[in-house]
């Protein structure tokens, strides 16, 4: 039966009869200041330049707050505060006491989870269901997990005496603003380092709220410093001679610039960069659950996920059936207000990112690729992109090779496991991958052949603080999470 016959004969109606009334979380619950300064040495401080920039809510284009732009002098001040805190307090403190501070941060986050979830959705555009059920719980889990390590490092690395490096400079992206902050701050603190961290310029709010929480936790001044700004601020951190380690999560393009800047220095660095993961569906897969995994793989967080399963590779014999089911499933996805508890797909993080995604799609149209988008209504204001499939593509197309970082899935077929593996590995990236089959031996055989840092079997986009995360090839250097993630913050002597 051809694809066309299937869809015309047996279509399901998802848009009629019963739709859910709006069920929004109230933003009245949170307090957002008009203006946020830099968090240096335990205090909020004016930037030397006096410059501020704004951050908008991408779902309605309204300005949420103003944020200070940190320049060279501000970064100098932050690094000096971090150095002083490291030498004077944090590295001298018994590890058990360090752990207590991190536990305290975790507990305070737990108490204020709802507030942080709402803030995160307002600033980043992600649906409240995700910030409430995934981002914030993961943030808390990361602090708890690393709090436990603080006084047990010698058991993680038996036979050596692990020592902190000193001051860590950390630059994080806008897709998981608070979660990335947790991934960076928690291991640095647990290993006895102090931190200068820069959140992304489109999503600084949750990090500044974290600064307030860190004050409430009585963390010694200077242990965590939060400087806001764009790429220039980031480069001040990267180039700073008194920073011992750089941890960066973001685009491969910027990663390469950082790597060049680090060349010839003795500073350590970890880079967690882009991805173009394949989700491989074999014909013996649990198809209905695989459809869920595909949806979760690419539409989670509007596709703003470095490990997103953005390339669907499906065994030819089941391709028509699978794609039809995928389209049916996509019709039930609710796109809209990130604060609505029923929203599945929120707003694209920024105008810049939306333009980038739409640029890819118009190029696809020009090169005769087949684009399928769901029919859902979109709000008038804000930045939105419907869930999108792109068919009639091959390895030679830009949309198959480059990271779109949006809700856009390319579809290709394969015939044999070997072909699936070669298509999967035919990319400059190697961050993650997915294998779907009911046959256990095939999972191991194929999983072993994929050159990527994380392989999921019969699931996708699962995260846990105990599990190392990181990439092969242009997806990065180093690992975060688990014991592996402690290592880049330690000197083993």
């Amino acid at each position: 039966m051809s694809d066309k016959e299937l869809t015309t004969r047996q279509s399901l109606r998802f848009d009629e009869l019963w739709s859910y009334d709006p069920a929004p979380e109230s933003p009245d619950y949170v307090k957002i200041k008009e203006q946020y300064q830099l968090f240096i040495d335990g205090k909020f401080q004016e930037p030397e330049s006096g410059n501020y920039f704004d951050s908008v809510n991408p779902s309605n284009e309204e300005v949420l707050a103003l944020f200070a732009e940190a320049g060279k002098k501000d970064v100098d001040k932050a690094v000096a505060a971090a150095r002083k805190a490291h030498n004077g307090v944090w590295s001298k403190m018994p590890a058990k006491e360090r752990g207590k501070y991190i536990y305290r941060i975790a507990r305070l986050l737990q108490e204020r989870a709802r507030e942080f979830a709402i803030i995160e959705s307002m600033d980043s555009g992600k649906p409240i269901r995700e910030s409430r059920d995934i981002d914030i719980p993961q943030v808390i889990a990361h602090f708890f997990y690393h709090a436990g390590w603080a006084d047990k490092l010698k058991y993680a690395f038996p036979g050596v005496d692990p020592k902190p490096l000193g001051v860590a400079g950390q630059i994080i992206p806008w897709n998981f603003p608070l979660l990335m902050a947790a991934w960076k701050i928690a291991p640095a603190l647990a290993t006895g380092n102090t931190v200068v961290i820069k959140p992304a310029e489109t999503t600084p709010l949750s990090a500044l709220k974290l600064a307030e929480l860190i004050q409430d936790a009585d963390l010694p001044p200077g242990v965590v410093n939060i400087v806001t700004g764009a790429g220039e601020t980031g480069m001040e951190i990267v180039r700073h001679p008194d920073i011992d380690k750089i941890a960066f999560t973001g685009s491969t393009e910027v990663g390469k610039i950082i790597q060049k800047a680090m060349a010839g220095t003795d500073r350590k660095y970890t880079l967690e960069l882009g991805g173009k993961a394949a989700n491989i569906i074999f014909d013996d897969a649990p198809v209905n659950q695989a459809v869920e995994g595909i949806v979760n793989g690419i539409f989670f967080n509007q596709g703003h996920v470095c490990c997103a399963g953005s390339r669907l590779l499906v065994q030819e014999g089941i391709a028509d059936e699978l794609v039809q089911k995928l389209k049916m499933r996509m019709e039930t996805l609710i796109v809209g207000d990130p604060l609505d508890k029923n929203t599945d797909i929120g707003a694209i993080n920024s105008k810049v990112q939306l333009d980038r995604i739409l640029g890819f799609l118009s190029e696809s149209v020009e090169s005769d690729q087949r684009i399928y988008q769901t029919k859902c209504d979109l709000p008038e204001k804000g930045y939105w992109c419907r869930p999108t499939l792109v068919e009639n593509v091959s390895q030679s197309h830009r949309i198959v090779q480059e990271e779109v970082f949006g809700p856009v899935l390319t579809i290709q077929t394969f015939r044999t496991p070997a072909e699936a593996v070669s298509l999967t590995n035919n990319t400059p990236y190697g961050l993650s991958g997915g294998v779907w089959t009911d046959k256990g031996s095939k999972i191991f055989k194929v999983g072993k052949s994929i050159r990527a840092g994380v392989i999921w079997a019969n699931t996708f986009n699962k995260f846990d603080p105990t599990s190392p995360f990181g990439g092969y090839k242009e997806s990065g250097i180093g690992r975060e999470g688990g014991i592996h993630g402690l290592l880049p913050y330690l000197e083993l002597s």
Partner: protein
Amino acid sequence: MIPDFKQTVPIDQIGVEERVARFRTRSIKKESKLFALKLALRMVDLTTLEGMDSPGKVRQLCYKALYPHEIDPEIPQVAAICVYPNHVKLAVETLKGSGIHVASVATSFPSGMGRLESRIDEVKYAVEEGADEIDMVISRWAFLKGDYGYVYDEIAAIKEACGPAHLKVILETGELETYDNVRKASDIAMYAGADFIKTSTGKISPAATMPVTLVMLGAIRDYYIKTGNKVGMKPAGGIRDSKTALHYLVMVKETLGADWLDPDLFRFGASSLANDLLMQIIKQKTGHYQSPDYFSIG
């Protein structure tokens, strides 16, 4: 074409349970809630299946089906009442002209451990007495032994005995244990002619669960895609509160779409659910809860 039932679609347990957890996060408020509560009430098969069922009890159940809450005339009727074959005639007479269906369990309910001939006779008797829906049980012993042909043939034979009556096939999923088995049994039932597939007798624990129901809804969808035929679904037993019922409806809507949000294609086999739905409907309309004593029992 009848598939090879030894080769049916594999089911991933974790994936099914995660999907169900997503349905449970749907927040149903205001008008959409009232609509769903009324719909759920229209889908209820009011059931009494006890050895102690007497004519008096059955009659009262029928009155309850006709007038769930007489004080509010906007409250809809339930879909059907479900009784043993010996009470079918009484139920049909009591419900005459109401449009409420009379369903009867048959085929040596609940174990199914009878001679096939006598099980078929029981079906014929219930239909002659006036039942327009038959709830049969499959031979789990044969299924678990791997004799799928036996199960297929018994369903086909009972379907024939039903004549014009609709056939609901009870898989008794609590005894099948795995989702793979549930999927396989669903496929066998549908290809053999089931009009509805139903989870449980209510006599075995666990009875209906959301994951089991999702596996069956997935089977119904695949069958529809392949054949164009719409088979109904009836989770039975264990669904007691409105919130759970609404999550079932969310699951139906997002798996099979609006066509299945209809008592002709989806039923709840439940007895205590109806009253909780009534209570919630009144709460939704008046803004406050009333004591359970304001709602009729039974």
